[in-house]
């Protein structure tokens, strides 16, 4: 329903630290209501890019547009940002802290109070309200941290490594909230190097390596684009591959199944014919590389 509305457009953005180019000609486009994954090894420039999107820093060259307007500090209420380096005021109470962040993001005092109440109820932590941060456990603080990011109901959410540092229970909570917010129409950009999160959550993704975007698209597109003519064959009983087989064997992990890579001139039809004749074929299908494989391939082959 939001498919065609652009939430964010990053156009040829460059950022330098001293003489080092940390973001090199980055272009991205996020549609409203989608979850976008930003992948890349450590030091690729993900955090630098996200800081620019969160108005913490500005690009040295290039433009960022949000809902068609050039990004500026007036868009702060639209944006929620959870940095990788996170923390809260240790001496402040949970409720004061949340109110402060909400008010900084432009909510009125009464609106802020209402939202804080709502979220504390929703996560069933009303009884923490008057506790000081230093009295809370790390897991509790993580919950508060996430609430503080989404309290002002941002249209565009930027999460830098949202699952790192969170315990599994809280990581699941964050995951569920991300899906919930997406369904409410929030556009979400998050960085991660955990591929299971990517495949589970992302509508689209981009991989950044050494400051450059090396690919982007939907998971389906990306995997299909990296299809290397590989096929998986499963057999009902162990099978030994004859010496004279013309197909190149890639791997035989178990005796029941093999993976075959075809040359350009070979057709999968011939492979299927051969397999069919063994009379033991149970399943036949193309093998699309996992995001993990694509990621490793992209960041190590350059």
């Amino acid at each position: 329903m939001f498919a065609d509305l652009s939430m964010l457009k990053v156009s040829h953005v460059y950022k330098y630290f001293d003489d080092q180019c940390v973001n090199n000609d980055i272009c991205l486009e996020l549609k409203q209501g989608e979850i976008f994954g930003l992948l890349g090894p450590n030091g690729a420039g993900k955090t630098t890019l996200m800081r620019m999107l969160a108005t913490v820093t500005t690009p040295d060259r290039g433009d960022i547009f949000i809902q068609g307007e050039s990004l500026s500090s007036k868009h702060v209420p639209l944006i929620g940002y959870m940095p990788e380096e996170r923390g809260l005021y240790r001496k402040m109470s949970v409720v004061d802290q949340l109110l402060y962040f909400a008010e900084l993001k432009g909510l009125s005092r009464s609106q802020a109070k209402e939202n804080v109440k709502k979220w504390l109820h929703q996560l069933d932590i009303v009884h923490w309200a008057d506790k000081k941060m230093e009295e809370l456990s790390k897991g509790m603080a993580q919950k508060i941290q996430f609430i503080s990011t989404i309290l002002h109901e941002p249209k565009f959410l930027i999460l830098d490594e949202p699952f790192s540092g969170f315990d599994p229970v809280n990581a699941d909570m964050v995951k569920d909230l991300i899906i919930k917010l997406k369904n409410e129409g929030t556009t979400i950009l998050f960085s991660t190097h955990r591929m299971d999160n990517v495949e589970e959550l992302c509508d689209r993704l981009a991989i950044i390596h050494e400051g450059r975007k090396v690919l982007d698209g939907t998971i389906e597109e990306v995997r299909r684009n990296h299809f290397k003519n590989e096929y998986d064959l499963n057999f009902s009983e162990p099978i030994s591959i004859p010496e004279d087989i013309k197909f190149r064997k890639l791997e035989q992990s178990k005796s029941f199944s093999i993976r075959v890579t075809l040359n350009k001139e070979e057709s999968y039809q011939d492979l299927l014919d051969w397999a069919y004749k063994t009379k033991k074929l149970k399943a036949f299908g193309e093998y699309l590389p996992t995001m993990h494989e694509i990621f490793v391939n992209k960041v190590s082959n350059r």
Partner: protein
Amino acid sequence: MRSIWVVLKKEYLTRIKNKTFIIMTFLAPVLIALFYGGAIYFATVGAEDHSAKTVYFNAPYWDLESDELAFDDYTFIPALPDSKSMLDEIESKKMSGWLQINDKDIHVLDSAELIGGSSFSVTELQKLNNHLKTRAHEYLLMEAGISDSTLRLTEVRGGVKALEIDNEGDIANSNTTLKSAVGFAMAMIIYMFIFIYGSMVMRSAMEEKTNRIVEVIVSSVKPFDLMLGKILGVALVGLTQFFAWIVLSIALLGGLSYAFSSDANSIPQEANNLPVHEIISGFQSLPFVDIIVVFVLFFLGGYLLYSSIFAAIGSAVNQETDVQQFMLPVSLPLVFGFIIAQSVVFQSPNGHLAKVFSMIPLTSPIVMAVRAPFDVPLTEIIGSFVVLLLTFVFMVWLSAKIYRVGVLMYGKKPSWKDLWRWIRQS
């Protein structure tokens, strides 16, 4: 504007609600009152030993009455003919001593001795000596035929009185000493305020950095607004505390002075000798409105300027121990201002050097405060304050730049070179 207010409110309220703040605000005046009350009490009452003491004396060549020597709790009686029993009495502490004045010529008292003199304190010995010398002086005058009344006729009192022409064109007392004291006291308050509350701003910026809160903050509010909110919020905390201290101190000191005045005898004799009336009339003649206006302007201006510098330091460093290298050069101008205030301003409060340093924004809060009671031309005050204010706005802007970059730099201790790079970078 709105976010400045949000930050200001948060900085103010979290500090005001803090237990340490409440304790310090109420305890400090009590401690100060106890300190001064105790000091006054011990100075007037506690130190004295009230048991009566008797001393033998003989002055064979001098017509000296025993009551001419008496002072405090000491009385003097003529010596007994039997020196052995007198010495026994002194040794057994029945008597406090034996004063012998065997000088034939009282121009030079070099044969006067006090046996058992160790029971006399230094001040008591001095009193005794003064008594003896005054008596000898009077004795010699009498011998020379000069009477008491003649002597009083020749006495000279008073001295040169400094006068000035006030705003109404009348000639009035200029009270230079009092003015210097008032100016210096104001400079001292400014100095203390800058350091106490300036470092509070610094710690506030540092807390956000070390607790990793800063990225969220910077994504929500412009560093300039954040800085200004912090500085103004802490300033309000300081003013609240100062105001509370003043009110509490007045209440406490009022209570104390009431307690003391009900026991009038305990006030030392010296207190009555002070020119109280002169001081009071001197105070009344000071240009109070001018002084207070200048004080408030430069008190706030100085604090604002320095706390914006402190905020930049706080956002640049990673831990308290790194602060020192930046604090020293920053606090030097303030200390320098004090030296200037002492040497130059006291000698010529409206001289060239005083004028120059009351224009330079880093020293002007101190130097101008000291000059304030000495009729500084209005143009100078306005000029200096405008310079101070502009420098403050510039410093906040500069600090905000350092903040924007500095707060995102973790790890290594920054150098001056880094700071300069950050300013250019952002």
